[in-house]
């Protein structure tokens, strides 16, 4: 599984960091998404998919 984020359009809602904290963090200054790993383990698949679904700004993508 590969993940990408678009920080320019992130609004810092924080849903990803709540849903999959081992994959996503937020920067201290603006709460904008930080990708901790672009290749999360399969065990995180469910949580990452939830983060994608729940991102209000649609800035998280699963890559093939």
């Amino acid at each position, binding site marked *: 599984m590969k993940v990408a984020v678009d920080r320019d359009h992130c*609004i*810092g*809602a*924080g*849903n990803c*960091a*709540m849903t999959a*904290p081992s994959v996503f*963090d*937020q920067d*201290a*200054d*603006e*709460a*904008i998404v930080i990708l901790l790993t672009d290749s999360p383990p399969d065990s995180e698949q469910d949580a990452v998919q*939830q983060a994608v*679904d*729940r991102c*209000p*700004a*649609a800035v998280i993508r699963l890559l093939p």
Partner: protein
Amino acid sequence: MSLPAMPMPAEDERPFDPPPEYAELRAGATMIRVSCPTGLDAWLISDYAGVREVLGDGRRFSTRPGLAAHVLSSYGPESPIDNFTRMDGPEHVRIRRNFAPQVTHARRLAELRPMVERITDEAITRMLASPQPYPLHSQFSTAITTSVIAELIGVPSSQRHLLHEAAMALFDTSTKADQLREALTPLYTYLYEAVATRRAQPGDDVLSRMIEHSADSDRPLTDTELTEMNAALLIAGFDTTASMITYGLLALLNIPGEWEKLVADPSTAASATEELVRYLAVGTGLLRQATEDTEVNGQPIRAGDYVVVAVQSGNRDMALHADADDFDITRKPGAHLGFGHGAHACVGQQIARMELTTVLRALATRVPTLRVAVPLNEVEWKKDSVVRGPAELPVAWT
């Protein structure tokens, strides 16, 4: 020929469900033109994908007219932009990025949790020492959410009535524009002075942190902008969440089996919160305006047309969950529209989640015998408010 009226919630007939007209529209992703309560004509979108598409695309669908100008008469869509909820694109992002870190950052929320737990515990202790039936909405739900948001921003107890008075006017569909300005003035005056005070003597509160954060940016927030942002946080921050606590408890205590599930396992409070926000959502939808000729669900929409997205209906779409009309507090949390969607999604959603989860867990643990003290058909509902829910809720326990 006049258009059909926009369907409005009628909680005394269907306490927990959107107007029945939506079911058929939603199933066919059918869009119709409706006449809204304030006289605007708009496209009505009631399916999940359509609502998500409109809210998710701020370029094609502007929030400029105001998210509730279809139901609030104080809100003329042509009036000057006076707050960030009516800004699009980079203007909105500038405000949001100074705002969001204080209320959406996971680490910041973890720091705030003990404060929310203390306020909740004190409210339950007060409740248990009071005569029954106990007016839950005014004495418990509103007291908790007011204390939380006021402590966040650093508003002392003596000034908290200012936000109650402002919210009452803002969310009342019958308030006129000049009445609203008059009702907001005392809160704005208080906050404007507070901005000056915190500039001189910063504290650890959200207002001081916003001042500090924005000072390093290209265009630091002005005193007026800081006043408006904090007024919005204070007003939206207590009434919507308080209504969700009260309305949510009514649903939990009335829909068979759900309160028992929560009492048996209070750790379901987090999924219960998500399900309540999905299931009850907002009753009157959100307004947008098309910026170009476009289409949704194959329906052409012309530049300038108004669009109302029925959030509560979208959350009941079978495309989202096959059993979307069922209420189940153990449902696995997933996407829904209860906090909106897109760049303007509720900025306070993490705080609201934390408050709801904390309150549900604490009540299920400390007051497992909680019950509503009146039959469902005697519950008094708010009438002229865009924030739906019971006007009061008498409760009892043994």
